[in-house]
């Protein structure tokens, strides 16, 4: 922990002003109590408290040391008392030695010293107590704010990690089957194979490189989606067809990265994977009351024996929306007459 006074200019000035004020008070007190030693008492007050102030500044270091790793209050108390005794004793001895050097030939100094000695002890102890209080107050306040900032940091770290985990789930089926298609195309159609490798790379780069905190435009999301769908079309051929109906003004609306891909993946998984019919995925986007409405629908086999997923893909999208927008966005799904629809509502003013 940094020194509370030496590391801060304002506190440094205030520190000395307080001491000066105390010194003047003491000088006045001495003057009224022991009026005969006016010149001595002024010099003594200023000088002795100056010395004490120096000692007080350096006391920070042992205090800080006592507090690190020490949990036994008795040990800390013993340390404080011992340090106090040493500090006060050295303060009085230094003062006793220096004042005659500055004010030579004062015969009545001894008398003055004896008279003020009990008072000195009292002041020493009192000020020492104040210093302990000040430093400890500072330490606990600093600890508190440090703890708070640490907690805040941890929280944002957890959130970030969660977002990353929710996003980075590229379906291994997609990856390996696409690579298998590439492997096949190298024999039957090398140009198409190269084209697919490039698309796959671009898609993966987009999926892996974008930071979660930076929203992207709908345009770049859709561009990336076309890559994804092109790759899937190589795998599934005519079984997959897509259609887009996008309102022009929606293209520049910002949204979280890789938010739509899981919805398409879901459509393909439950549509194309499970059906021999042509599956048509329709995307329509428009602005409604400050929200961007994204509707993705696909036909699927509604038979009860059709295999069902675990719903993880859609759940992840909902969770991500929550983390991004709080309760300002939402998603709903419906499956009727063999058409599955996901509707997504994203605040459109989020730049």
């Amino acid at each position, binding site marked *: 922990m940094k020194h509370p006074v030496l590391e801060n200019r304002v506190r440094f000035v205030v520190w000395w002003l307080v001491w000066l004020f105390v010194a003047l008070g003491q000088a006045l007190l001495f003057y009224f109590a022991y009026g005969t030693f006016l010149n001595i008492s002024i010099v003594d007050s200023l000088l002795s408290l100056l010395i004490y102030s120096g000692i007080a500044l350096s006391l920070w270091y042992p205090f800080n040391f006592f507090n690190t790793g020490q949990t036994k209050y008795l040990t800390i108390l013993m340390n404080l008392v011992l340090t106090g005794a040493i500090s006060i004793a050295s303060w009085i001895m230094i003062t006793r030695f220096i004042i005659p050097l500055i004010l030579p030939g004062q015969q009545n100094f001894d008398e003055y010293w004896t008279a003020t000695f009990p008072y000195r002890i009292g002041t020493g102890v009192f000020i020492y107590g104040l210093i302990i209080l000040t430093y400890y107050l500072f330490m606990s306040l600093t600890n508190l704010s440090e703890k708070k900032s640490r907690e805040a940091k941890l929280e944002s770290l957890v959130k970030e990690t969660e977002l990353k985990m929710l996003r980075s789930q590229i379906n291994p*089926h997609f990856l*390996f089957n696409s*690579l298998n*298609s590439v492997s096949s195309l190298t024999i039957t159609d090398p140009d198409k194979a190269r084209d697919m490798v490039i698309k796959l790379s671009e898609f993966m780069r987009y999926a892996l490189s974008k930071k979660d905190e930076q929203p992207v435009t709908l345009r770049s999301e859709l561009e990336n989606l076309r890559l994804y769908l092109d790759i899937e079309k*190589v795998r*599934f051929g005519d079984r997959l067809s897509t259609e887009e109906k996008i309102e022009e003004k929606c293209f520049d609306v910002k949204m979280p990265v890789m938010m739509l891909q899981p919805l398409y993946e879901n459509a393909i998984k439950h549509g194309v994977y*499970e059906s021999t019919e042509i599956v048509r995925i329709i995307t329509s986007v428009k602005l409604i009351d400050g929200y961007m409405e994204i509707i993705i629908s696909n036909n699927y086999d509604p038979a009860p*024996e059709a295999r069902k997923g675990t719903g993880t893909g859609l759940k992840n999208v909902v969770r991500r929306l929550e983390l991004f927008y709080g309760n300002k966005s939402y998603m709903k799904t419906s499956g009727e007459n063999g058409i599955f629809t996901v509707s997504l509502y994203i605040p459109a003013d989020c730049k």
Partner: protein
Amino acid sequence: MAKIRTIIVEDEAPARDIIRHYLKELEDIEVVAECADGFSGLKTISALKPDLVFLDIQMPRLTGVEMLEVMTEKPAIIFTTAFDQFALKAFELNAVDYILKPFPKRRFIEAVNKAVEKIRSGTENKEPAELLAKKPESAAPVNRIVVRKGSAINLIPVEQVKYVEAQDDYVMIHHSSGKALKQQTMKFYEENLPSKDFVRIHRSFIVRVQEINRIEPYEKDNHVAVLKSGEKLPVSRAGYKHLKEELSF
């Protein structure tokens, strides 16, 4: 020597292309058909009775694993899959081999050679029941049961299953629109049917909890479960304990 008659069952065209391409170079092999989904695959296999089948797992309508469950005469099987290797381990013995996509030519040829050797030597495939029971926990939960009735293949959604009854080496699946025999073990269903819905009430019975109307005492120590349909199923002492835990009465 007669050529080995082969069928490719695979729903993605490029994946079929590469298998066909590799096979073209092998003189022993003759591709007699290609199928793009599980149902047509099954139909073609029983019609053409091939020696060897390349079988994808993830396919529309019926998965490769489900196809294998209901095949009556089993050709040599080589599974080709992208990412189901864990589910596949259990079927390893039942299939000649499995290859992970994308596969190198060397690995492909190795699998084919294994199959050819097995077909030429006439080794029988092992019975599936004992092997199916080895299905590991990491496999996807059962949500439909594939059964064969004559030449028809039926898919029974798990939601329609009322109870499962042991019958020698088979189990009888009683569902909302009839019953069907299936070569499988009770242990398999005890482990793979959703445990919140099904309870094993007897050595020979696994029942859907919701189907139970009431439980009546029977003779001195035993109980019977009366189903909503009026059918009565015996409840063993252990089964009674399971029911007690499940229904907390």
